[in-house]
């Protein structure tokens, strides 16, 4: 089980790999679309990479609810529990 800090750090690495954004820019209250300028195609790539990294499944219909980085961290954390 990864802690929320570990999930955030792992997500930040995935976002950096996909978009080139600095890992420090990936904070819990940041919106993927508004703040990080991540489009839907990049978002799907991030979701699939997060599934592999954290061993969880994020259904397609759930992705639209992951508005902020914090939403994603919480979802992954609950899915791992």
């Amino acid at each position: 089980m990864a802690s929320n800090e570990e999930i955030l750090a792992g997500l930040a690495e995935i976002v950096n790999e996909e978009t080139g954004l600095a890992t420090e820019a990936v904070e819990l209250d940041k919106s993927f679309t508004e703040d990080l300028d991540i489009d839907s195609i990049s978002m799907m790539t991030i979701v699939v990479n997060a599934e592999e990294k954290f061993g969880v499944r994020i259904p397609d219909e759930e992705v639209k609810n992951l508005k902020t980085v914090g939403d994603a961290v919480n979802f992954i954390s609950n899915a791992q529990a």
Partner: protein
Amino acid sequence: MARKVVITGLGATTPIGGDVPTMWKNALKGVSGAHTLEDEWVAKYDLPVHFAARCSTPALEVLSRVEAKRMDPSTQFGVIAAREAWADSSITEIDHDRLAVAFATGIGGVWTLLDAWDTLREKGPRRVLPMTVPMLMPNGVAAAVSLDLGARAGAHTPVSACASGTEAMHLGLDLIRSGKADVVVCGGAEAAIHPMPLAAFSSMQALSRRNDDPEHASRPYDRDRDGFVMGEGAGALVLEAEEHAIARGARIYAELAGTSVTADAYHITAPDPEGLGATRALKAAMFDGRIQAEDVVHVNAHATSTPVGDKPEYTALRAALGAHVDNVAVSATKSQMGHLLGASGAVEAVLTVLAVYERQAPLTINLENQDPEIPLDVVTSARTLPAGDIVALSNSFGFGGHNAVIAIRNV
């Protein structure tokens, strides 16, 4: 009177140079870009051909990692060449609604397509990247160049196998002459050094098998030629309405005087043995540019080094230029960089423009015993082109019976 179209920017990334200055220096020196492939898949699949001509500068040395991730390798090469051509044109202000793109490919995103297929089979559909379709589509390179430069007058993708790059020039000329655009970024890109295309071209006996001596494998017009050498890369040219170029005080390399496209309607892969389609293309490009045979001083030949392909081109040149063909300096630059398929016409257009601008013909290497049935004046050592008004032609022919010719005139 049709609008005159001139060339004001050049870009390239090729097996003999990652930019135009390096490529040109090597083209005049005579070097080979063909080398043994070190990839594990050559042995894994026991490929009959062990070598190819890779780009001398990897795309990842030029593009950022994140930028490159969203592009097929063919698009990466195309964007690199287009950016160089655009910078070379020194265009700073432009009406983006009057800027178009005509960027060709022969095969398109073959790496992306086959990587995605491998991923599907090994890891399942969830792991197939969401960018797969825009990366594999053949218009991906034209679209990427259009996005990069903000070209909004249309982004076109001529696809005619190994004639594609030259057909892009034909389309670009039409777009400007017809008033649909003032500036067109033309080019071609290809990245097909993948085991599947190597196996497929090899199956049809099109590739040289000189595995023990890759540097001497591409030998157009030589008695002992045994096939082409797969190359990769891209070429790009900025075409501009003459009045547009003059108004901004641009450096003008040359005029794109005439172009043509014909089809053999003879056989899906074999060239018409009498070169009839190629002859019609040569004559049509000369007619289009109001060019007499005597004006032509240089030809950048298609000359891929296949046993069956090189001779019909000679037959066509003699039919179109008559006895004057004996006075024409012919360069077979695929001897140096291999065959860049859909990019070859664009790269050879860059070389032909520079030949007219610099009055130097690029070299043909590996010609040791010239085929007696092809008695052309082949440029094998430094050759200066004559002073005064001159024209150079560049030919490209593709599977499907496609023939495309461009004519470049000095300004």
